């Protein structure tokens, strides 16, 4: 990823494999996310070695034993919570019931704010506002150029409020502030600029029919889109959903996760400042069984998009089927293999596999949670993976240099600890970690299991936490079969320099994304989604536009056509 001129500015969230020849401009970095405008987590130093593997982090940072630091008072976020109400028809309003729910700081379990709790009657109001904004305009009736300009202005405002948005995100979610501020908010901006550019390039086709007919396809906005997003990347999921839907001219009712309602309200307000007409983007905070179910089963919602667990995805699909048969896009769970082949440079493979699993506290649907390592390099890999996990810096996510914050909430926290116990009981070797960190909040030790077998629960189920499972394999055919032997099919990592191995694995793995010598490379233009029970449809890229468009074929006879 080397580039002339020193300034590195890219729009990928990625851990990229770089060769020694292309990384000469990268200095040693004293924190996991170097540089304000750096999206790419480049961990190779100029000798082609892994910076992270060399203990450069220095005094004050050793192992994850920052437990004592966790007993200190949490750092106060530099942002006020301004918006806690529902955003309906361009206005912040209370829930009709008057109910609120607390949103908690995962560092402490304490209340950040009380947020209006949307129920089905609030969803009704929001859908009515979105319906009106769609049916009467002006949004879908504007020129695409005007829609583009509003999205670009919104992107500028999001960029301007980078730090507040990042602080809200970290406060509500617990992810490292540097990750929010330097990777996620810039990516949010990038996503909206990207989709702004699509608005005036949504092309139908003229179609050659067998006969004297003039045929064209119109790509029309689908209508009112219901969108339900998760808590692990609140703003990025907001962008993946809202960006293409708005670019296509739709209106939206978006339900945020009850764990993380704050940042979407702030962002949605900025869209209105940018000139988004009222009713086009409605944000309803609330819970799945009430607000989420109301949206999924609403008779006046034309399209549903959901990101979350596979179990909830099934419910959402059923509700859509039972109500008005609205089309559904689902981006669900995963148990993604990360395959380290025999030719791998072990140090680099360890770092990438570590990132693939532990990034975002392991709370990624595409986390590389099954680390398959070729037997030739297995022992060395396990030893180094353990050492790397031990060096992982866990602590208050607002602190500089932190790699890992707390898990989102007590439920996830307990679930992860339960899976760790299950791993031990099933006979996997606990190399490191295995317990909570500190005595308050939801911090979990970076945990590594070796000698994991395919049949163990920790190798089959989505843990969604900082628990790495290392499995041994002998040959390519075997690892293909084992990697595919899962109900999920979201992503995979392949680590090899051999082009034939890379191509064979790439085609054979039944997953929606294969990262070869990189992981979590998430640019706006790269489609993402699952095979099998990891979901349906693709988000991001041009593909995502299809989720929010109806195709209308228009046919008329031709009289004496000059050609056919």
């Amino acid at each position: 990823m080397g580039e002339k001129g020193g300034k590195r500015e890219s729009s990928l969230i990625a851990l990229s494999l770089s060769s020694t020849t292309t990384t000469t401009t990268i200095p040693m970095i004293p924190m996991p996310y170097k540089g304000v405008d750096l999206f790419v987590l480049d961990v190779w130093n100029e000798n082609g070695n892994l910076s992270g593997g060399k203990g450069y982090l220095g005094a004050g940072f050793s192992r994850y034993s920052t437990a004592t630091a966790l007993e200190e008072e949490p750092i106060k976020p530099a942002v006020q919570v301004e918006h806690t109400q529902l955003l309906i028809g361009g206005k912040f309003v209370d829930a009709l019931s008057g109910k609120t729910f607390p949103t908690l700081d995962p560092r402490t379990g304490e209340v950040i704010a009380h947020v209006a709790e949307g129920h089905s009657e609030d969803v009704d109001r929001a859908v009515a506002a979105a319906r009106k904004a769609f049916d009467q305009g002006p949004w879908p009736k504007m020129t695409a150029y005007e829609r583009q300009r509003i999205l670009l202005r919104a992107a500028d405002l999001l960029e301007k409020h980078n730090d507040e948005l990042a602080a809200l995100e970290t406060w509500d979610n617990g992810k490292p502030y540097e990750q929010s501020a330097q990777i996620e908010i810039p990516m949010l901006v990038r996503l909206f600029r990207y989709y702004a550019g699509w608005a005036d390039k949504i092309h139908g086709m003229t179609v050659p029919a067998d006969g004297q007919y003039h045929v064209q396809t119109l790509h029309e906005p689908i209508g009112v889109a219901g969108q339900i997003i998760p808590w692990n990347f609140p703003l990025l999921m907001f962008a993946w959903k809202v960006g293409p839907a708005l670019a296509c001219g739709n209106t939206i009712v978006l339900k945020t996760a009850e764990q993380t309602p704050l940042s979407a309200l702030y962002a949605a307000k900025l869209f209105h400042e940018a000139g988004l007409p009222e009713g086009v983007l409605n944000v309803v905070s609330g819970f799945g069984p009430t607000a989420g179910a109301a949206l999924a089963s609403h008779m006046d919602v034309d399209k549903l998009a959901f990101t979350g667990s596979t179990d909830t995805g099934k419910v959402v699909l059923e509700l859509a089927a039972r109500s008005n048969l609205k089309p559904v896009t689902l981006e669900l769970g995963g148990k993604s293999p990360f395959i380290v082949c025999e030719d791998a440079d072990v140090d680099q493979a360890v770092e990438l596999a570590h990132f693939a699993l532990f990034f975002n506290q392991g709370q990624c649907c595409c986390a590389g949670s099954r680390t398959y390592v070729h037997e030739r390099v297995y022992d060395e890999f396990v030893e180094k993976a353990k050492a790397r996990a031990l060096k992982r810096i866990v602590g208050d996510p607002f602190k500089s240099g932190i790699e890992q914050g707390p898990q989102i909430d007590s439920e996830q926290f307990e679930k992860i600890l339960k899976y760790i116990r299950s791993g031990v009981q099933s006979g996997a070797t606990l190399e490191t970690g295995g317990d909570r960190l500190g005595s308050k909040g939801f911090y979990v030790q970076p945990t590594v299991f070796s000698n994991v077998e395919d049949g163990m629960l920790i190798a089959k189920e989505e843990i969604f936490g900082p628990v790495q499972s290392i499995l041994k394999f002998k040959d390519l055919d075997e690892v293909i079969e084992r990697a595919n032997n899962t109900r999920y099919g979201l992503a995979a990592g392949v680590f090899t320099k051999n082009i034939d191995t890379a191509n064979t694995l790439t085609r054979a793995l039944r997953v929606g994304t294969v990262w070869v010598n990189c992981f979590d490379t998430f640019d706006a233009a790269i489609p993402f989604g699952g095979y099998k029970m990891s979901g349906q449809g693709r988000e991001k890229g041009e593909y995502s536009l299809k989720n929010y468009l109806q195709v209308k074929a228009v046919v008329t006879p031709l009289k004496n056509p000059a050609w056919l």
Partner: protein
Amino acid sequence: MTALSNGHAANNSSPLFKIPPIKFTNLFINGHFVHSLSGNEFETIDPRTGEVIAKISEGRKEDIDVAVKAAREAFDNGPWPRMSGAERAKIMMKWADLIEENVEELAALDAIDAGKLYHLVKVLDIPAVANCLRYYAGAADKIHGEVLKGARELHAYTLMEPIGVVGHIIPWNFPSTMFAAKVSPSLAAGCTVVLKPAEQTPLSALFFAHLAKQAGIPDGVLNVVPGFGPTAGAAISSHMDIDKVSFTGSTEVGRAIMHAAASSNLKPVSLELGGKSPLLIFDDADVDKAADLALLGILFNKGEICVASSRVFVQEGIYDEFEKKLVKKAKAWVVGDPFDPQSQQGPQVDKNQFEKILSYIEIGKEEGATLLTGGKKVGNKGYYIEPTIFSNVKENMRIAQDEIFGPVLALMKFRTIEEGIKSANNSRYGLAAGIVTKNIDTANTVSRAIRAGIIWINCYFAFGNDIPYGGYKQSGFGRDFGMEGLHKYLQVKSVVTPIYNSPWL
């Protein structure tokens, strides 16, 4: 409105608008304004008066060489093609914002240099430059190759690579629009550019270059070299180190450029050339609206537009009524100083064009066409010409075959759809066509039958960033605007490698 208000048509130092001082008169090469190597200059003229606006450095072959060297270096070793599309987009967006901030000054430059209506340039041409840049900025990160179906166990895909150093030669009738139409897609693609503006209208291009630098376009990526066709233009089209040349202008010059490209390094060429575009008005048309459309079609930008509706075919059922209305409307058309908000038509761009148009009017009379209105110059100063309409025009007359590039309309009658189509296609050109009808079958039949690059049904001059446009026949080849306009600055590279044990093919 006063008809032909030639009283103030040629007002020297216009009190209607304070012309800004001319800031940029040198060549823009490698990020700097420099004198031409020879030190030569040429005069750019105010067509309202024929007086000198400014002296401009005259680029010649040796200056083109320097510019190409800078563009080559910027392409081969510079950051521009190595940036992500999103990064290029960011800089282009910034450039668009700067252009919007300077809309008045830029509009004044085109008005004074090309005689264009200031108030129209301000709301149309210059904002369109910003919009075009934004359109292609939005496209810069959407240049997709394809992954292909191999015939055997092959993995194959296409890379859409920037073609390299692009030479652009643009005309004087839409100095800003043409600049944007050429430069925006080539920059979005990751190419570097050497652009020669027309010698009549170098001012706005130089100002754009100045703003490009402010926006952060790296040095060498955009080079603007004013000069003349036979020297600077020929140097571009025959240059061995330019990878692609794109030209908008006359068919004669287009032919010379293609020839030069062929005999030098075989660089691909795209040409957007002359036209003699037909407008077909059918019996079911609203006659009044059709007359407005026909008039606008020929008089917009004083007829100095390659897609002008210079042949108007009217179906016999409404012909007489149409002719009467058209003439009445033409007589009410206001010719005057382009800075006057009342003016609908400014002066022709220069003396050459002015004299050429007047000579064609004489030819029309000699050929036996009936001069219904106009036919004369307006005022005693500058290059103003009356809106001119000929009837009883025969298809083989020169005023029905040649591009006049002025406010001169040839009016003809037709009976059936088939006859209308045949007449419309009776031209060596094929740039645009208009159809006025409410009948869907007529509209569809005629749309497919006319051999032209853009068909306007019940509208005219309906351009858009997303709408490709270019010519059939001797109107050229290749398309500007839309994603088509981007693809001509890209090379397609196929990459193929064997695969083994693929579970699917």
